[in-house]
């Protein structure tokens, strides 16, 4: 054990004095964490700026009741940062002036004149149509085959009522409501804004025209937990950089120490190959914990991270560090040249980072990417960390932990076989 600790000690000291190693193991992941959490939102979901011009006003210049309700619903979603444009002005030039000389992107939603009355009429028309359908069904209904429910007289009376309804419906002649959304084609969020508006108006009109349920957009019902964007990125970044730190760390240390005769020198002491391997893996595990702790410390202190690591997360960090140490040993064992081994470790690490959903979810990726992703060991480390940290269902990490531990055993065994201690 004394010898194993000596190996851990020498590895950590050596690591702490190589600036690039410290940068890529700790500072770089921290930088990414800060950038990601800033760019992709802090505590709240993104809120899109939106100008609204309401043309549905009465003679006194006040908004119609229906348009007021619609605007309140838009506001209540928190999806938009709404500025109103007065009815009597040119919406485009008003928005431009509002944004100011520096320009920028603006989106304008125009609520047309008659929005409220058209909705009411639409609702009436809809109900007439429902009543008509009911009448038709009633007329055709039979008590038993060949025996109708209604007698002939009753049927005639009802048909007369139906004709009166048809007349009323024809007079209503409701119009289709046209909301207008103006946005610049170069506005990359334009489509997103359009989709949100579409779903809000659908719910709004269904709510009105349907069975009269109250309309509400409860944001809580969309979000299952109260974590922020940074809570999502944190496990991904920790997983990705546990991988890169350990793979690159072991590969470069083993190839450099072998080339410079340091492994030979150590093999001339009573230190055994097993002790060297255990010490190297242990050192990388310690580094993985340092990385995890620093990321969490900054996350808690600066970024408002709320996730707290549990034992499963600790186990995932250990299994992940062992797994990727094994992979590093394997690379260093197969490729003796320092430069080539480092190139190989980067060639394995970088694509794996992007294909394992470390930086962005792969739900929208093509199927073959998702299949590849399922074959990558990093995927399970990150899945395990996410399950353990933010799912509200930490037991979900157990499968990932089992897969990662299994792969760790395989990689360490193969890595150990390729790590030579004595010469031939």
């Amino acid at each position, binding site marked *: 054990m004394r010898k194993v*600790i000596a190996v851990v000690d020498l590895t950590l000291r050596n690591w702490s*004095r*190589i600036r690039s190693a410290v940068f890529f193991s700790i500072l770089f992941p921290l930088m990414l964490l800060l950038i990601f959490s800033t760019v992709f939102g802090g505590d709240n979901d993104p809120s899109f700026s939106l100008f609204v011009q309401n043309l549905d006003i009465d003679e006194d210049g006040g908004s119609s009741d229906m348009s007021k309700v619609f605007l309140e619903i838009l506001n209540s979603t928190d999806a938009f940062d709404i500025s109103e444009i007065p009815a009597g002005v040119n919406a485009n030039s008003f928005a431009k002036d509002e944004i100011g000389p520096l320009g920028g992107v603006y989106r304008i939603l125009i609520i047309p004149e008659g929005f409220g009355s058209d909705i009411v009429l639409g609702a009436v028309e809809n109900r007439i149509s429902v009543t008509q359908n009911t009448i038709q069904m009633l007329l055709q209904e039979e008590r038993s085959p060949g025996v109708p429910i209604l007698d002939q007289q009753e049927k005639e009376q009802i048909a007369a009522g139906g004709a009166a309804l048809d007349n009323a419906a024809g007079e209503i002649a409701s119009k289709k409501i046209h909301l207008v959304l103006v946005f610049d084609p170069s506005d990359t969020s334009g489509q997103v804004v359009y989709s949100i508006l579409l779903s809000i108006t659908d719910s709004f009109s269904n709510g009105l025209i349907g069975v009269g349920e109250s309309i509400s957009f409860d944001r809580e019902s969309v979000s299952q937990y109260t974590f922020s964007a940074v809570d999502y990125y944190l496990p991904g970044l920790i997983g990705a950089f546990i991988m890169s730190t350990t793979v690159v760390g072991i590969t470069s240390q083993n190839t450099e120490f072998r080339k410079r005769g340091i492994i030979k*020198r150590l093999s*001339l002491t*009573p230190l055994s190959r097993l002790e060297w391997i255990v010490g190297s893996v242990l050192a990388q595990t310690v580094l993985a914990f340092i990385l995890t702790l620093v990321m969490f410390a900054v996350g808690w202190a600066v970024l408002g991270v709320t996730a707290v690591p549990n034992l499963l997360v600790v186990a995932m960090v250990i299994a992940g560090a062992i797994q990727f140490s094994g992979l590093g040993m394997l690379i260093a064992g197969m490729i003796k040249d320092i430069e080539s081994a480092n190139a190989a470790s980067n060639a394995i690490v970088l694509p794996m980072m992007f294909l394992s959903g470390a930086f962005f979810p792969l739900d929208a990726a093509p199927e073959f990417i998702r299949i590849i992703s399922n074959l990558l060991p990093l995927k399970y480390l990150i899945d395990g960390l996410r399950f353990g940290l933010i799912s509200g269902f930490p037991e979900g990490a157990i499968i990932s932990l089992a897969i990662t531990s299994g792969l760790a055993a395989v990689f360490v065994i193969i890595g150990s076989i390729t790590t030579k201690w004595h*010469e031939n």
Partner: protein
Amino acid sequence: MFISCFRRKRLNLSTIAIKVEGLVKVYGTIRAVDDVSFEINEGEIFAFLGPNGAGKTTTLEILQSLRKSTKGSVSVLGYDVSDNRDAQKLKKEIGVLPQDFNAIDKLTVKENLSVIAKMYDKHVDLKKLILTLDLEDKTNSKFEDLSGGLKQRLGIAGALVNDPRIVFLDEPTTGLDPRARRDVWQVIESLKKDGKTVFLTTHYMEEAEILADRVAIIHKGKIVAIGKTKTLLEKSGGGRTVILEDVPESIIKEIKNRFPKATIVGTDVRIQILKLKEVNEVISYLTKKGLEQSLQITRPSLENVFLRLTGVHLTEEGELT
């Protein structure tokens, strides 16, 4: 001074520290070590002298149980180096300065020594060891900042950290400037005083001549000569050579008659004297001729021994010409 930090051991030349019999190491079709046999007594400095690629390091690494032999038996301090358990025990009792020694660049002298020391159950006092090797000013310097000579001194310190019975030094002064080389020689000489057995390899004739009690000359994987350094010099060292420069032509003729085997190039004359008792006779003759001012005399050398035994010159770089 040097002795102080090590256990004193009684010098007993009759104990055999290393015994090698019929050692062969084959790589593919190359016989790197070809039927080598020798013994080293405890407490002596033994040198393997030969050019690069002669099989010096391969033999040494087999003795350290770092490589497996193809054939032959090797016993070091009574341990069979081909047996893994013996090898593990042996490692506790030997110290090694490998060829092209390097320590961890970013670690200091003290830290590097401490790394090696922690691998042993017992080790000598590191402060004393640092003092002994005159490294105290550099204790906190990183290995990468040391000069070549200091790096080698740290390497030797590392080889002594466990107070070993045998110290293997593989080309301890290669690449060092003359001054640094002499510093290292001093350290090696002091090891002998402490009763340690030293096995060193070198391609520097002077190094073997100055340091070694016994020398084995190795060439193409075979030992071509082995024995006490003095005996080898007397036997195959080419005797002494009298060198004369700017000799007048009249005297050159006389010298030609008197010493028919003398080598004469222009006005320069070289007379080889194989027997020690003839030296006085030659010198008194040359003094009578008034040549004592330009007279120089060289000693027998391992260079000559090497040349006579192998037919080739060994350069300072360890190459053959």
